[in-house]
């Protein structure tokens, strides 16, 4: 085992976690409102607006149809504008967030759509405002499903960070390319793959446990 392996892996893992965390937060900040708007502007819902619904849906579909690697290259200039640099992990967060938010928005949309319309009507029938229907009914009712969907998005973001890493964003993806592939360092290659597998398993398990806990509290006997 090479003596530089551990520091390399530590730095790579740190950078990857940093990108995942910030990209997840940023894509939630963008994706949650988008998902909510997609649902409530649907025909017959609390803020029906077929125009807004169509425009948003189209934008989301366009962003989602970009290959991830192209999206990163296209959005790096924007990163310079927003975070002041187009290099490294921090810069990568901008394309990661913008690339993941539409996916997250769709996942959130489908979770919120599972909430029976009758519950929304019951809230409206006692005089709830749209914002109260969203905050007190739609989101809480869909919470376990929202957590499962966000878990899915975090896993997608993890894969996305690896691609970003390959074109200079740092993190485990970058290690795998620069050392594992270009310098034939099998130890680096295998280690990064194992760490990524463990991360994804961890996210999946954590999300599932959290969602189950909420489900269980709502359905406990007694």
């Amino acid at each position, binding site marked *: 085992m090479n003596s530089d392996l551990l520091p390399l892996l530590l730095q790579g893992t740190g950078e990857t976690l940093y990108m995942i965390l910030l990209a997840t937060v940023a894509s939630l900040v963008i994706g949650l409102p988008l998902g909510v708007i997609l649902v409530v502007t649907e025909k017959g819902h609390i803020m029906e607006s077929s125009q807004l619904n169509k425009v948003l849906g189209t934008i989301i579909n366009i962003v989602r149809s970009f290959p991830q690697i192209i999206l990163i290259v296209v959005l790096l200039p924007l990163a310079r504008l927003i975070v002041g640099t187009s290099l490294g992990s921090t810069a990568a967060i901008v394309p990661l967030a913008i690339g993941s938010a539409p996916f997250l928005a769709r996942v959130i949309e489908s979770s919120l759509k599972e909430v029976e319309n009758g519950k929304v009507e019951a809230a409206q029938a006692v005089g*709830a405002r749209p914002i109260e229907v969203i905050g007190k009914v739609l989101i809480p009712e869909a919470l376990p499903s929202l957590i499962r969907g966000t878990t899915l998005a975090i896993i997608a973001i993890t894969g996305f960070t690896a691609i970003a890493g390959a074109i200079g964003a740092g993190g485990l993806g970058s290690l795998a390319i620069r050392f594992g592939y270009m310098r034939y360092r099998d130890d680096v290659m295998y280690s990064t793959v194992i760490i990524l597998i463990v991360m994804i398993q961890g996210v999946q398990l954590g999300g599932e446990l959290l969602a189950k806990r909420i489900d269980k509290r709502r359905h406990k006997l007694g």
Partner: protein
Amino acid sequence: MLKAGVRKPDEGTAEPFEKGTTWNMITVTGLSKAYITPYARVQALKNVSLKVETGDIFGVIGFSGAGKSTLIRCFNRLEEPDEGTIVIAGNNVTSMNQNQLRLARRKIGMIFQQFNLFDSRTVFQNVSFPLEVAGYSRNKIRQRVGEIIELVGLTEKAKAYPSQLSGGQKQRVGIARALANDPDVLLSDEATSALDPQTTYSILELLQDLNRKLNLTIVLITHELDVLKYICNNMAVLERGEIVERGTVKKLFLNPESDTARRFIGITESFHNHTVYREGEGI
């Protein structure tokens, strides 16, 4: 037949309905509503007019698809009528903007066939929802929710989630939630149709009790004649979006004028005969 526990205004005078809206909690005039689908235009309500006295338990009966849900959902504008006016407690609901409508809805409770409780909230929190929306303080909410869940007999279930309740208990929560803001009117859209007969009667008894204690005006729609017979005083029969018969429930049985009414009575009787027969068989 049970007696009507309702104050009947102007009893003995010739035309109580013509004395203006003072005693009418609800006045519906010329209500029409059509659903436009890609394939068809369904005229769900045609020029419906009716009056519900304050403190009455008023039943609207009709077969499936007659337009009952559409009618009652126009009362709190969960459906937007195409034409006509609805005046509830002196306020013209049909001319209100969204803000006015939200305020008016606090005074028009509604219960549903599928209960529509919030699964993310306990019984207590379900009942507190309308009060949170109305902006009451925490203390006031706690006190009011306590009162109302006692009224429906669910005090010891305050911390339970809806999934832990029976159908009857769920509907009690629905009723408590609908009454939290102390409404003038309770609208019931087939509230007992998902319940077994035993539970149905206990819910109907609760409604009757609330009608007396709170002088609550109740409008209930149903496709079950038994429900109408059990608690309603006045009724209307709806058929293809039109009122084909109206009056007291007693009159409906003694002197039905419409085919629909006769069919209802006929069906119910043959159903009961059938039941008796089957019981005789020992099934």
